[in-house]
Structures are given as C-alpha cells and as structure tokens.
C-alpha cells in the first residue's frame, strides 16, 4: 500500500478531477441549459436555481483544476466531495419525488424526453457519485501523490491542519 499509494492518489485525482472537469466544460457552452438542469430538481426558488446553474459549471472546473494539479488537495478534495454529496442528495430527492428529469450532469439536462421517471438511471447516477465521494475521501486521507504541484499539501497532511 505504501508504495502504491502515491500512484493511487494520482489516479484518484485524475478520475475525480477529470469527471468534474468534463462535467463543467460540457456545460459552460450552454448556460441556459445548465440553468434549466438545476431548475428541474425543484429544490431552489427559480431565480436562485438560475444563478446556481450559471455558476456551477465554473465551480466544477475550478475544483477540478485544483484536484488534477494537486493543489491544496485536502481542501480541494473536500470541496469535490461536498459537491458530489450535493448531487447525490439532488438526484435522490428527484427520484423520491418522482420527477421525470434528466440528470444534466454532463449537459443534456431538463425534463426527460418521454416524460417518464427512469429509476435505473437515477440508481446508476447515485452509485457513480458515491464512488466519486469515496475517491474524494481517499484523497482527503492520502493527499500526497505523484505529480502533485503542491508540495505544501504534504506538510499539511503531516501537520494535520
């Protein structure tokens, strides 16, 4: 474990950061669709959902860059993990309330084309996000990895700040 851990941390950074980066990049080109994907979850007032929808892709990109580069990794992994946990709650409540929507995670949000609730899709999305939360947890626990820009992250871990 000791020998492989820096590599595992590196791979975890690529998977979690890469997923977030793809999700953000696919959405920035289309802000009105991104805003609609937040509105359909019906968790926020429309005006607030729109602001979050316009901002979320950029936040995803920002957190993704920090994770991939390995900067302030404990904090950026924590932010990524919290983001994923929020997505799990959003999808879970949509499923529980029977909202017929697309995830919109990588664009293509909105009401599902056939107007139906796709339980299997909700399930797989939640499983995927739980996996990503687990990766964030791993990074939080083991932030020292290969090719990390931030050597300070190492100190931080030892110092347990």
């Amino acid at each position, binding site marked *: 474990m000791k020998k492989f851990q*820096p590599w595992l941390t590196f791979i975890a950074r690529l998977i979690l950061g890469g997923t977030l980066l793809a999700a953000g990049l696919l959405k*920035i*080109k*289309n*802000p*009105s*669709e991104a*805003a*609609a994907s937040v*509105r*359909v979850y019906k968790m926020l007032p*429309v*005006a607030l959902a*729109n*602001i979050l929808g*316009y*901002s979320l*892709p*950029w*936040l995803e*990109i*920002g957190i993704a*860059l*920090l994770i991939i*580069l*390995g*900067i*302030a990794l404990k904090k950026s992994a924590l932010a990524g993990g919290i983001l994923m946990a929020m997505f799990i709650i959003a999808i879970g409540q949509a499923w529980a309330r029977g909202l017929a*929507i697309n995830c919109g995670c990588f664009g293509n949000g*909105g*009401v599902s*084309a056939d*107007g139906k609730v796709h339980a299997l899709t909700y399930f797989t999305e939640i499983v995927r996000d739980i996996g990503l939360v687990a990766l964030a947890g791993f990074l939080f626990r083991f932030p*020292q*990895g*290969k*090719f*990390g*820009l*931030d*050597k*300070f*992250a*190492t*100190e931080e871990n030892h110092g347990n700040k």
Partner: protein
Amino acid sequence: MATSNSGKPDKGLRSTVIGMVAFVVIVGIGFTLISNHSKSVLKLPATVSKADGYGIVFNPTAKPVIDIWEDFQCPVCQRFEAINSTYINQVVAAGKAKVVFHPMSFIGQESVLAANAAACANDQGKFLAYHTLLYQNQSPTENSGKINSNFLTQLGGAGGISGSKFTSCITNLSYQNWTKNIEVDAASKNINSTPTIFVNGKEIDRKTQYMDPVAFQAVLAAGGVK
C-alpha cells in the same frame, strides 16, 4: 523521480495557482451572469413586446392565450410541429386565440441563427411559413454546421421571402440580443424543456396532450378556442 514528498513546502506556487484558478472561476461566473441578463435596450422584431416575454405575437387582443416555447433544433419540437402545426396555423389565421411563439436557443448557436432568421421572416409577415420550413429542413444532428446564413436565406426563398432587408437581417444577426432575452425570460418562467405549451398561463399535460392531435385540440377547446 520527484514525488511530492520531496522538497520544501512551496507556498508561493500554491497561492499563485489558487489565485489563477479563482480568477478563471470568478471571471467565468461573472461573464455568464452578465451575459444571461435581459437587455433593456435592444432591437426588437415586429409584433414582439416585453409584456409577452419577448415572444412573437399573433392576434394580440384575442382570447384565450397560447404560449409556445420551442427550439428549431429540437427533434421533439419537430414532431410536435408535424402533428399540430396545421391546427395551430388555422387558429392563428381565424383569430381564435392569441398565439405567442417563443423561439428559444438553448441547444446552441445554430438555434440562435434559426430564431434570428425566424424573426427576420416575421418582419416580412412570413413567420408561420418559415417556421414550418425550418422544421421540415431540420438537421438530424444538432449544431452540425447546416444552419448558416446561406441556408437560412435560401430557405426564405423557398417560402417566397427575399429581398436585401431579409438577407441582411440574417447575415447581421440583427436580433441576436432578442434571442438572449427570450432565453432569460424562459428561465425566469421555469421553462425546462421544449416544446412547452401554455394555455392561459398553465402548461398542458406533457404525458398526454402534446403529441396526440385530438387531445391537443381538446385542451385548446377547453381553454376557450372555439
């Protein structure tokens, strides 16, 4: 090979990168929020008013009111148009309802071009004909490059619209800001998919009333279309 275990803490590099990333994020959010804000001074197509959510209005004083949010690149809208447009056009022609078209552009830049061109056609009094032509010639893939100034001008020719005013309206993207205002208005009204149809301010039932012409005409009749 250097791992992050070696070397001294490098606080400067860390702060620099965090600063750069934060800059990108803040500028990105700021730009997105500003550009998705309704403009108050802009060029509007004919028969458009702010009060109707910047939609293109037919029979402004008639009742009931039917609102149609659509995107010319959306395949479901194409199906809806194929099923119901003959009836909708009859309702418009007979003045049986106020009908408001909101051409959205959430699918991408080619939707903006198409919505702009539809507004140009509206200035020539040919919105409905052009509307049908856009759907009949929809590309099976979104933003494929098919919809451009040339294509949109030629489409006008097929619908009997020509002239330098129409052509320059398309090539200059005269109503680009207007297409943005439609998007912003739709966002504020919680329009989350296309097509979305309101009768007297209330959405009809997505599961049963969009794609069945009998049910669609019934719900319009129930709303007051005689």
